[in-house]
């Protein structure tokens, strides 16, 4: 009771703070320390990479020569030669990776989410099993799949032998120029599916069961219910899923680095990996920075789509 009496009193006593002229510095005190670190470690470096991409710096000599767009000319000029350059391979592989990522994990993840949204027995167990790879590090996934793909005694080729595959004609997987990139992408997609499934499981919660029941009463079959009700209602989730898949595909580095290092003969090179090799193995900082800028430019398109989506969420408030 004492509190109840005191409260209105303190409200009356409190000085009214509506002086609009004076800037309130409080938020800046809170923002200061994190923003300082963010500017030095993230924002500054983005711009510095742009600068480096216009130089021929080798990382060792004291001075870097400004060479304009020469690095970019070198990269894009290498496209279309008889032997595909590492850059050309990288662009192509990133594109393949991207296309696989926006289709395969999305479709399988959505399918699983729908199957696992009916309250069937064992649902939780299935979800955990499929989500599990997402918890593993890329390093562990790279090792596991290197063992699966191992041409000598690996899990996959041993299985092929059981099914009567001729022993002298077993695929080399990661050692095969044609198959290697697909093998790496497959391992990456294996990790991705669980994530996409969980996003859709969360999204399906916004599909009211009553709507489905009403459609069922009206005689819509499962196929129609999916395409006419569920899928359109999931559009916001699908947008996010596609953007995340694209960004993840462009970020792919760890698997390639550990499983193949871009080989055999550059056939699994991706931009992220190429940049690392140029800069840290060949000491071509300028060229590496230019490759990073190309990768950034591609990502930026999708970062903007993502921001636009977040901005729409903001307007709903």
């Amino acid at each position, binding site marked *: 009771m004492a509190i109840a009496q005191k409260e209105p009193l303190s409200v009356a006593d409190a000085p009214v703070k509506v002086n609009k002229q004076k800037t309130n510095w409080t938020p800046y005190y809170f923002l200061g320390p*994190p923003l300082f670190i963010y500017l030095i470690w993230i924002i500054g470096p983005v711009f510095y990479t742009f600068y480096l991409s216009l130089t021929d710096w080798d990382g060792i000599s004291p001075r870097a020569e400004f060479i304009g767009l020469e690095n970019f000319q070198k990269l894009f000029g290498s496209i279309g030669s008889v032997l595909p350059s590492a850059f050309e391979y990288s662009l192509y592989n990133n594109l393949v990776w991207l296309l696989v990522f926006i289709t395969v994990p999305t479709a399988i993840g959505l399918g699983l989410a729908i199957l696992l949204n*009916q*309250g069937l027995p064992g649902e939780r167990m299935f979800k955990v099993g499929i989500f599990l790879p997402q918890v593993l*590090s890329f390093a562990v996934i790279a*090792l596991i799949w290197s*063992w699966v793909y191992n041409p000598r005694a690996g899990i996959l080729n041993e299985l092929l032998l059981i099914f009567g595959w001729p022993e002298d004609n077993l695929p080399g997987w990661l050692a095969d120029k044609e198959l290697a990139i697909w093998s790496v992408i497959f391992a990456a997609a294996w990790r991705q599916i669980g994530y996409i499934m969980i996003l859709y499981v969360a999204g399906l919660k916004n599909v009211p069961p009553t709507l489905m029941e009403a459609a069922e009463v009206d005689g819509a079959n499962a196929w129609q219910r999916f395409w006419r009700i569920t899928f359109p209602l999931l559009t916001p989730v699908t947008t996010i899923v596609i953007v995340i898949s694209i960004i993840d595909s462009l970020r792919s580095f760890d698997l390639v680095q550990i499983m193949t290092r871009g080989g055999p003969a550059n056939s699994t090179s991706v931009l992220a990996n190429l940049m690392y090799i140029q800069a840290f193995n060949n000491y071509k900082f300028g060229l590496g920075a230019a490759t990073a800028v190309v990768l950034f430019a591609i990502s930026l398109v999708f970062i903007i789509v993502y921001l636009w989506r977040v901005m729409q969420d903001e307007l709903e408030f």
Partner: protein
Amino acid sequence: MATIDTPNAPVLNRKRLTTAQWLTVLFLLVFTLIYMIPFLGAILTAFRTMDDISLNGFWSIPGELTLRNFPEAVQRAGVSRFLLNSFIITIPALTGTIFLSSLSAYALARYKFAGNKFLYFMYVAGTMLPFQILLLPVFLLSNNICVQEAYELGQFVLNVPFVDAKVCLYNSYLGVIMIHIAFQMGFCTFVLRNFMRSIPGEIMDAARIDGSSEWGIYWRIVMPLTLPGIAAVSTLEFTWIFNDYIWALILLSDGRKFPVTQGLSGLQGQFTTDWPLITAGALVATLPTLIVFFALQRYFIGGLTLGSVK
């Protein structure tokens, strides 16, 4: 908060599953089992010997099961040291990320000021950056933030003759910790800011009227109410930082400081054909994140969905 369960899915009477539903369950069972073959296969491999596998093939019934690979991986291959390094990096990085992000999240969620939206979008955009755009400058930065006096200090105080007169962020745990804090701040700020926005403003107004300082409001009112959000991002961030590979690769050169991800990738070169040893090491390396996932599953999944779909 979303969980891995589907609470509002229609509850089926388990006795009356239709044939179609039984077939779905069967399909899901087979699918999940096939899906997990690489993982289950790795577990099985870790308990076998390479002789057995190369002689009889992977799909043979194991002649003998052995636990020998695990102590071997932990001691001889150094996985225990790598794991310790991972924790030395992850725990401070996680604490720093959460604390600093909560500061900026509070400012962005609770104050109107010039540039609020701009800073918010800057953090959101940062979560999507490809690492490659940061690699070279962060590498150079870490090589240039140094303590010059380390030599004198080492001789004078510790009586240790240092070979290198400079101690830099490069090849130090702190260097890796700093980039993790900075990079993960974007995602955490994004999630925590949205979480803090859902706290009713009246609570804070009441505290302000009672004479609480702005810091007091943040620390004693907003932070406790944000704990579920913090739990969600912490479980996720723990996994992400623990599983990092690229930053340790760029910023560490001393093998004794390698985290477990980088240590593991080295095992493959070192023990090329001893797959039981390699998979045993990989499984041990995965244990911390697996434990976190199974213990805090609800928060883990919640964090994932909080961060992307609202």
